């Protein structure tokens, strides 16, 4: 019995040893991990490739070095969810006026409807379609990240046309001017959604905007019909909404570092497209700054809203436009900067007195200084607003006659 037990123990030890040896001498196993990604697309037959645009000093030039002055219009709609508002005929009409650019506002809240979940359909069904139509008529597109009303979350002012930050990102703020002001403050201070603290799992609102831009850019990195990306439409400042909030000048101290980070990230992915940036508010004189980047365009906006009116004095108008950024001569992009300037939005409500003369004179001034421009906005409406067409599609010739590039 003792001998049998001893034998069993020895056999057990031997087998264990064999298993151990086997473990030691087994060659490294070739393991495999697989990542599957679905891909899709559409073939577009019969379209012309547009020449790439870039900047050269104060000019925008094409890939042959020819100067291209962008003149056209914004085409609103997709930033507000008006899905059927754009047609090929609209692009044909703008091309017939000699327009060579359409600034196309898009909205973050449609692109990222849930945290980290991007909506390709928005780009595929709408933006892609407009790009294809634009190319067909040799019109460049500027993609504009729009923030009208800051976010659709904020409806306190009665606006139903709002765009910008996704609702989930600012849902904890009250639906009031104070809520808007606080959320804008938190955005510039680098907070997470709803003012939360930032962590590896909870990127800041700024970082999320960078990620959204990268998502958009990846799609269009080889699309030469896109003239450029207008990175942040009319960057807001809190004191516009709440007393004691960051002023425009104070907000600039956050805006430009953000632009630098955004541009640095974009350039890792897209070294080709022109990047367009605006000062605080899109117009504010206290916040102009030349960025140490290449292939960039400075952009600002110039509107005349009712009940404003135009005196008819073009000299005063020119002085206001050209010296708009007059805090110091070095801050004047039109006069003193060596990068192109785009008036990304300009327009007058038709009900303002001397409105048509305003259009004529402003366009004259744009031409004098070789500025690129886009009217706000191509739209169809019978109201005496800034739309370029009546509801039936007929052009508002009292405005369009001064915007047309053909006699």
């Amino acid at each position: 019995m003792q001998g049998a037990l001893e034998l069993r123990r020895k056999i057990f030890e031997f087998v264990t040893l064999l298993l151990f040896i086997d473990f030691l001498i087994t060659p490294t196993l070739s393991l495999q991990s697989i990542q599957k990604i679905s891909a899709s697309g559409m073939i577009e037959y019969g379209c012309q490739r547009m020449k790439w645009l870039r900047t050269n000093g104060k000019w925008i030039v094409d890939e042959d070095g020819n100067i291209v002055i962008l003149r056209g219009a914004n085409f609103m709609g997709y930033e507000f969810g008006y899905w059927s508002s754009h047609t090929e005929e609209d692009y044909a009409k703008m091309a017939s006026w000699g327009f060579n650019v359409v600034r196309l506002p898009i909205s973050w809240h449609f692109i990222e409807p849930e945290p980290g979940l991007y909506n390709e359909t928005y780009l595929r069904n709408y933006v892609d379609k407009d790009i294809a139509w634009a190319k067909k008529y040799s019109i460049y597109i500027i993609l504009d990240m729009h923030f009208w009303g800051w976010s659709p979350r904020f409806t306190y002012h009665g606006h139903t046309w709002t765009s910008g930050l996704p609702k989930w990102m600012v849902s904890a703020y009250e639906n009031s001017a104070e809520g808007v002001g606080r959320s804008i403050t938190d955005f510039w201070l680098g907070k997470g959604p709803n003012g939360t603290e930032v962590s590896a799992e909870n990127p800041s609102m700024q970082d999320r905007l960078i990620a959204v831009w990268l998502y958009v850019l990846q799609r269009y990195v080889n699309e030469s019909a896109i003239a450029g990306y207008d990175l942040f439409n009319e960057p807001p400042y809190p004191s516009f909404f709440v007393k004691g909030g960051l002023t425009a000048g104070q907000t600039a101290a956050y805006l430009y570092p953000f632009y630098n980070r955004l541009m640095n990230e974009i350039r890792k992915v897209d070294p080709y497209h022109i990047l367009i940036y605006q000062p605080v508010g899109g117009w504010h004189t206290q916040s102009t700054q030349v960025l140490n980047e290449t292939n960039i365009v400075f952009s600002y906006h110039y509107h005349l809203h009712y009940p404003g009116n135009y005196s008819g004095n073009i000299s005063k108008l020119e002085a206001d436009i050209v010296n708009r950024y007059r805090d110091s001569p070095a801050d004047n992009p039109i006069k003193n900067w060596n990068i192109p300037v785009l008036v990304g939005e300009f327009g007058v409500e038709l009900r303002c007195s001397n409105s048509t003369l305003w259009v004529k004179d402003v366009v004259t001034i744009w031409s004098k200084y070789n500025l690129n421009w886009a009217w706000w906005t191509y739209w169809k409406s019978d109201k005496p607003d800034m739309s370029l067409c009546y509801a039936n599609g007929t052009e508002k010739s009292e405005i369009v006659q001064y915007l047309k590039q053909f006699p």
Partner: protein
Amino acid sequence: MYVANLAKIGTIAMVLASMAIVYALTYPSVRLRSVGNIKALGVGVYWDSGCSQSVSSIDWGMVEPGAVKNVTVYIRNEGNAPITLSLQTSNWNPSNAADYISLSWNYNGQTINANQVITVTLTLSISSNIQGITTFSFDIIISAVG
């Protein structure tokens, strides 16, 4: 009975021993490993260098015949061992789309260490001879081998 069982165990042990010897001779380049390490492989594909936005699908949008379209992604080794990658496509729809459309990348076969993130450009090339296909879809398979 007991003795018979012992004999069976002895036979099995001898067979195992023989297998071990043959095994060792068959794989002359085997190397000893650290006992106790478990090798886990994993690979993640992201839109951003911070690896916060995972890529589940790529929509190439509208592409013209003869066009080349790039998409940049960030690939992270999420296992604990060095890996190399390979790229395949499958499930083409329509099936003849694969005759006109190809996918490549600029990954050069370098080893990617654990937690390392590399930038990879995926390039979709459309043949200028493509005809009759208006939409297409396929699966991109990125395999990590370690």
